[in-house]
């Protein structure tokens, strides 16, 4: 007989009794335990009964005993690892909840020891970190010993595991869980450089998280659902995002900008930054560092570098946040979680609402636009002395938005302004710029498409169109490796042409009309004109009437077929307008202008009359495409009148090959009568075409006459 046999006998009897008489089973085990207190199996059997019955308190007590008395039993460790796994998981499963409750019954000292030992036995970095994190969260005093090490381990893991993005499981754990524990622990003294390094790691994560693109698999799912009868908003609402290695629930980061601000406030306080303590808004923060910047030139040494860091970090965060808010309004489909359906993409272009204005005034303003801007700069300079050369260029430019189509227009423009101000601040001193560039380089902001969109718009706003063009070309390069950039609203081609339209706008502003028209016609050939005549909102009409701006305003144009085609037509009109009304005779340009003036009639009535005046002065006018593209009844009447004696018997060569005919007819008198007949017939036929969809006609004009249009510009 051996003790082993006795114990086996006792446990076996207890096990047999469990189903029918659990009380008797326990009585057996209690007896067994007093006989053989050192036998593990007896205690484990007791624990098993309590655990299976999910009796938290007694199971906890027995686990405690086993942990104390049998610290080396593998079964105990297996049990502990099951419990710690339940602690790490957020599973609402009843058994997992029981296990978590079980852990809670243990004395703190034992919990601490258990977690530490369980951590030691863990080989997976992520699991190990999660385990250690449980420890740190429960026992703040352990943060001093393990906090920074855990943080560094996670940051190293990022490197060694070759993760592609800052939004990864290691960083998430570091930023959202470890970092707050470390920086809020007042028993720790961390060097400012380390705090700032951590601050930037947090910022990179949060910005990356906020600006993450829609995941590709979701898009497939979305498009499939789009095919069914389900409302597209349903599929978009259920967009899910999972950080590799984390559960869906723990992949969610609530209020990232607010969390980032929290961390900034603590880091700021601990790095002894200037300014009031406590939480402030991003906008307040910008004002604060702006003031601080004034003292920067007078500072030296540590104070200066500390001040520099504060200004750069704060201004950079304001910049990226504001830029994101702007781009999320202008190009919402880029981001996950931003509702793209509420408002489509928008393009920042030159405002052309003054295109129907008098040419003379227009000519002057365009010619002297640069000078005028310089003048404006001079005025600015006298007002704020700290602005350096080149800064504030284009300041005071207005951005026109259709307020009904973009309800959040004021916030969007405000974000754009704040972002520009932050950018300017970051480039107001060499030391600031150097620091900022370091951040950009380490974050690889060059590859951030959304930020490039902001930068391009900012440069356009500043009026540096040449630079803007190269930025737009860069953007196209960034955009290429991401072929999935499409919105579910089916505007793939339009968004693709977004850059082309902006380029055209820039070329126009630079006076490069031929390039402008080339880009435009590329865009137009991809458009399908809507069947409905564009119906303008009353506000739109009101604006055109009341606002006669200098001509260097900007405009946020909705990136839709409906809005883009009219813009293209206006931009082409603007290109030809100047050529058409020069002293030199250019019938082709004048003809194009007449065709283009049909759109938005009678806005261009004044210009049309000016064209008629010019034709009258010339005494003749040749434009063979006239009957192909002019269907406006007012215009047709006017041209019919021009031929009459009362109209001045203007020689109009408006039919294809009419010139040749006329030359031929001059030889034999009377044939002109036939010509007259042709014109009359053409006129009559044209009047019957008046009901034709004008946009279709003009669209056809752009496509069919593309080569002539481009060639007619130098």
């Amino acid at each position, binding site marked *: 007989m051996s003790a082993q046999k006795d114990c086996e006998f006792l446990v076996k009897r207890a096990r047999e009794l469990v189903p029918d008489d659990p009380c008797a089973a326990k009585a057996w085990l209690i007896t067994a335990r*007093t006989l053989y207190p050192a036998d593990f199996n007896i205690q484990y059997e007791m624990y098993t009964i309590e655990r299976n019955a999910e009796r938290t308190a007694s199971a906890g007590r027995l686990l405690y005993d086993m942990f104390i008395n049998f610290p080396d039993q593998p079964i105990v460790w297996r049990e502990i690892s099951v419990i710690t796994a339940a602690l790490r998981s957020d599973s609402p499963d009843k058994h997992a909840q029981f296990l978590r409750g079980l852990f809670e019954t243990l004395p703190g000292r034992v919990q601490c020891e258990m977690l530490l030992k369980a951590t030691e036995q863990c080989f997976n970095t992520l699991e190990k970190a999660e385990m250690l994190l449980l420890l740190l969260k429960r026992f703040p005093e352990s943060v001093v010993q393990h906090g920074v090490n855990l943080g560094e381990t996670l940051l190293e893991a990022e490197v060694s595991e070759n993760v592609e993005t800052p939004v990864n499981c290691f960083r998430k754990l570091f930023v959202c869980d470890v970092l707050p524990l470390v920086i809020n622990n007042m028993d720790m003294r961390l060097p400012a450089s380390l705090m700032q390094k951590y601050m930037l790691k947090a910022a990179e994560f949060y910005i990356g998280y906020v600006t993450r693109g829609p995941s590709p698999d979701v898009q497939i799912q979305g498009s499939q659902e789009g095919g069914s009868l389900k409302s597209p908003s349903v599929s978009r609402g259920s967009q899910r995002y999972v950080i590799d290695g984390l559960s869906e629930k723990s992949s969610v980061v609530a209020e990232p900008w607010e969390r980032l601000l929290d961390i900034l406030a603590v880091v700021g306080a601990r790095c002894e930054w200037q300014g009031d303590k406590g939480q402030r808004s991003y906008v307040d923060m910008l004002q604060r560092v702006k003031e601080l910047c004034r003292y920067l030139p007078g500072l030296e040494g540590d104070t200066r570098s500390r001040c520099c860091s504060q200004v750069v970090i704060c201004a950079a965060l304001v910049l990226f946040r504001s830029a994101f808010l702007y781009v999320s309004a202008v190009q919402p489909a880029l981001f996950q979680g931003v509702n793209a359906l509420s408002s489509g993409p928008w393009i920042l272009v030159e405002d052309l609402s003054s295109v129907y204005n008098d040419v003379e005034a227009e000519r002057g303003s365009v010619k002297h636009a640069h000078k005028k801007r310089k003048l404006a700069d001079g005025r600015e300079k006298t007002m704020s002395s700290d602005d350096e050369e080149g800064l504030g260029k284009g300041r005071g430019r207005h951005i026109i938005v259709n307020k009904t189509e973009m309800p959040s227009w004021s916030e969007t423009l405000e974000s754009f302004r704040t972002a520009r101000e932050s950018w300017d601040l970051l480039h107001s001193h060499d030391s600031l710029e150097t620091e900022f560039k370091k951040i950009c380089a380490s974050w690889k902001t060059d590859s951030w498409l959304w930020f490039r969109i902001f930068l391009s718009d900012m440069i356009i706003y500043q009026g540096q169109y040449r630079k803007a063009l190269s930025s737009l070309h860069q953007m196209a390069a960034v955009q290429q490796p991401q072929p999935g950039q499409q919105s579910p609203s089916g505007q793939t081609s339009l968004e693709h042409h977004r850059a082309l339209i902006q380029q055209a706008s820039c070329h126009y502003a630079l006076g490069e009309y031929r390039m402008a028209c080339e880009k435009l016609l590329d865009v137009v050939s991809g458009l399908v004109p809507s069947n409905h005549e564009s119906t303008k909102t009353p506000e739109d009409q009101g604006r055109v009437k009341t606002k006669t701006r200098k001509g260097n305003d900007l405009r946020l144009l909705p990136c839709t077929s409906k809005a883009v085609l009219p813009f293209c037509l206006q931009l082409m009109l603007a290109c030809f307008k100047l050529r058409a009304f020069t002293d030199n005779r250019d019938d082709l340009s004048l003809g194009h202008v007449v065709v283009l003036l049909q759109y938005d009639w009678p806005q261009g009535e004044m210009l049309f009359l000016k064209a008629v005046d010019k034709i009258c002065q010339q005494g003749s006018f040749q434009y063979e495409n006239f009957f192909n593209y002019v269907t406006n009844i007012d215009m047709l009447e006017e041209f019919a009148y021009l031929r009459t004696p009362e109209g001045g018997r203007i020689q109009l060569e408006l039919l294809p090959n009419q010139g040749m005919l006329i030359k031929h007819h001059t030889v034999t008198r009377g044939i002109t009568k036939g010509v007259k007949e042709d014109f009359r017939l053409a006129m009559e036929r044209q009047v019957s075409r008046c009901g034709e969809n004008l946009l279709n006609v003009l669209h056809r004009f752009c496509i069919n006459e593309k080569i002539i249009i481009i060639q007619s510009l130098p």
Partner: protein
Amino acid sequence: MGDIRQSLLPRDVLSAAKELLYHLDIYICNLVQSGRQPPQVDSKTLELVEEFILHSPKDRNTPARRMSALQELQLLEIMCSCFQEQSRDTVRQLMFSALFSLQGNQADESRMGLLGKLVSMAIAVGRVPILECAATWLQRTHRVYCIRLAQVLVDDYCSMVPGSVPTLQNIHSASPRFCCQFITAVTTLYDLTSEELTPPLELLQMIVSWIQDDPRLVLITFLNTPLSGSQPISSLDVTPLGGLVRWCVKAPLAYRRDKKQALTNGSTESELEVGPLFSTLHLSVLQVFMLLANILNEKGLFGRLALLQMDSLATLTSDLSRLLDQADKHTHTSSADTHAASQLALDRLAQALQVAMANGALLCSREDLRAICSRLPHNNLLQLVLSGPVMYYNNIHTPPLAFSPHAAHSPIASHPTHPTHPTHPTHPTHPTHPAHTPHTPLATHPSSHPQYPAQPFMTGIPFPFRPSH
């Protein structure tokens, strides 16, 4: 106080009793105020109580005054409020004792009668002070009278008025001390020797649920009583543990016997119902033993105070042996059921002995156990317990499992300086009165000394009846 008798005589029975209670209250208050130790109610006063409250005849010449049932009820109400309104504990206790302490005279019968009615009423209307006084009374009075009081209460609440059990159930929260004493009295009363001495099912259910909810309940009296060794002889045990062990061990066979009688009616209901109840109760009893080790250690009593008495265990084992014989005789061909019941009884006995011994509730050697269990039939667990664990177990840190009286014969233990052992500051109170604690042999170093060398009975002595598993 004797001089008020003349003023009481002309009054009617109720107002005389009322008047006397009033004066008794004042008298005892003054007694306590005077600070005389110990406060003693004089015999004249006790006589007045007997004459005017208990109405026992003063002498043969005086006819006994009697109260009507209504007057008695009114008197009980007055007494209830009298105890309720008295805020001082000492006064209440003295008053209760003046009224109800048994005097060994002929008034005791009516005293018991009135006490039963008063306590029953106190339970019904929730008069905690009376229950507290009654708890003390149950500690100081001979067990025969305690049993009588318990019987009255069980009759009132479990037999007479159906559905009144929940009222009795409440005493658990109203007065745990009273509840504990009540359990002790009830387990002493019902020893399962006959059908009349088997607890009613409702009572059993109630007791099981009390102890299951709070195992410490059975230790309340023990925990609250300064064990000065002045425990009156023949009073109830300080805990109901002995009685409860008896219940659990005998139940499987006792209820079978009942069942056999009931078989003619074709009913086995009682067994089906009580089986799990006793199983639960038995587990609770073992859990209480497990609690005891620490409590005894804290009180410095480990190895000094036996909560289970050897002689009552000896009675139990001989009762059990008789029951087993009867079971065998009645079922000529020993059925599987009978065998299972017998084994269950023996298992429970073995478990209770082992766990009680390991936790210091039972002070004896395994040798002693073998002696009292010698007539019992074979049972694996019992044999394992009687022979003790095998000690060549791998783990050398096995703590001592039970107090061993053999240790008392070791040179250290017999050392005369022991009672003032510095590590046990609570010792002096007990060793100074060894005569009052005949069941607490002096011991050295209770289990507070884990490295204490293995004790003789644990060394795996060759015992011929190791379990055959």
